């Protein structure tokens, strides 16, 4: 139904990196093979135990999280998760993160022979690049990372970005480096204070904000990038809870739609959305609605 970078997706719905873990728990509740795709949780070179609790705070129409990229590290990931992911009959996207360029390149080499179809470079890790600024907002850093990643990668390379002031420039750099697509958006930063104690609820104070509350921001961001990059594959996400939300993202320019908080709040939600989209696409044409909000 959707084809990007020469890869066929059964439907436009994929699980976003993180809230769905590495799939083994989710597989107890839904048939992952019905998904358009599944993005594994960001894996880093070494194991990370993540942040101390609480890691989740509920806010109006959303949730703040401060997981701290808890993950088993690449060795245990390959041992415990990769076989399972490779056995799936859906498109697996591997999200990788690190502290510096070399980390990303090493992870690509370690995972190059998996059956996954895309590498998604999560640049929103609290990592610092050469220029002393975080990689996710460093034009030159992104260019050189993508360029080198493309040289060694056997799979298409996506980068995942948040909402930034000069987002077009960052994407432009990635495109110059040869990026195959972008994933938008990683969660904006949010804060919640417990007014009884006067302290932020999360130990790190600020956490990633996701859920329905951020949908208008995510849509505006996809739309904004789509306006400048007409042919770049985009995985859009941020607050997708209903099939109407998914359609909005496709109309705004997303080729594929990711579900993060949505699968966390209800593991069956992605399958329900896929069912409703099937009905919708019986009478509407994906190609016709894709990008349609930009015309005229």
């Amino acid at each position, binding site marked *: 139904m959707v084809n990007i970078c020469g890869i066929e997706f059964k439907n436009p719905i994929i699980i976003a990196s993180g809230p769905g873990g590495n799939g083994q728990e989710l597989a107890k509740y839904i048939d992952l093979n019905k998904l358009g795709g599944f993005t594994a949780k960001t894996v880093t070179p070494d194991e990370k135990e993540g942040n101390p609790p609480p*890691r989740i705070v509920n806010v109006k129409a959303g949730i703040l999280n401060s997981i701290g990229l808890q993950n088993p590290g690449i060795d245990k990931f390959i041992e415990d998760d990769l076989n399972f992911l490779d056995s799936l009959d859906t498109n697996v996207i591997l999200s990788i993160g690190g502290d510096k360029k070399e980390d990303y390149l090493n992870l690509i080499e370690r995972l190059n022979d998996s059956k996954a179809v895309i590498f998604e470079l999560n640049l929103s890790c609290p990592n610092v690049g050469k220029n002393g600024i975080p990689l996710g907002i460093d034009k030159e850093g992104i260019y050189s990372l993508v360029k080198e990643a493309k040289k060694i990668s056997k799979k298409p390379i996506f980068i995942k970005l948040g909402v930034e002031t000069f987002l077009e420039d960052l994407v432009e750099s990635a495109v110059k480096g040869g990026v195959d697509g972008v994933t938008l958006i990683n969660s904006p930063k949010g804060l919640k204070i417990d007014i009884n104690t006067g302290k932020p609820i999360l130990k790190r104070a600020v956490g990633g904000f996701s859920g329905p509350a951020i949908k208008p921001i995510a849509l505006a961001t996809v739309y904004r990038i789509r306006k400048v990059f007409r042919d770049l594959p985009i995985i859009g996400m941020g607050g997708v809870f209903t099939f109407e939300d998914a359609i909005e993202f496709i109309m705004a320019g997303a080729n594929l739609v990711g579900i993060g908080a949505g699968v966390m709040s209800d593991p069956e939600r992605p399958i329900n959305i896929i069912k409703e989209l099937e009905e919708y696409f019986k009478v509407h044409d994906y190609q016709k609605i894709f990008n349609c909000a930009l015309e005229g």
Partner: protein
Amino acid sequence: MKCKVIGKENTENYLFLSVETSEIINVLPGQFFMVKTEDYDFPKPFSVIFQKGKVIEFLIAVVGDLTGRLKKLKIGDFIDIRGPYGKSFIETIDKNKKYILIGGDCGSAPLMHFKNEYPELVENEYYGFRTNEIKSILDTDKLHIDEEEGISVIERIKRENPSKNTGFLVCGSLNMIKAVKNEFKGYKVYASLEARMGCGVGMCKGCPIKTKDGIKMICKDGPVFDLSEVDLEW
């Protein structure tokens, strides 16, 4: 799963809620459901106080946004629940011991459920509440009302000097659980731990607890843990 509110009793701060599910869901004491009202976005965890056939009952402390909405439900309204999730008491504990149950506030719910299912494993029960407000919706002579007794549950049990052979099953605030751990050193203590949860099924990594074997998830690996294996100070 959509289910219908078939019973509801409440005081200002407490709610006893009975719902009817469409199929029979068997719940082991200590397991929980992720619960929300229909127009709410994210569910939150609640243990079960009683389950039989298609009826599931909850004892809920009205403390904030979701619980406030639950309190406003009317008979015939619908709520969304999913579960049961988590490892129950019976799957975790040493079944050769007898246990003193200590509930703190609505943490009493899963322990009452436990008593109901496994009376033979129960040595004694104490359900501590600050005020006697709870009495109008909870009918048991095992209530320990702080303001009536003048001493805390823990103080009271200490005075009763339980045999070193009995264990404890505890559910309540983190402070209470810590107090039990400190006051009853050398006893076996299992506690059902609280956490702010995202998914409830172990995938989002939202509800960690540091254990001897590394970081575990309270929703999936717990909520019941052997207290000697977890680090409550992390």
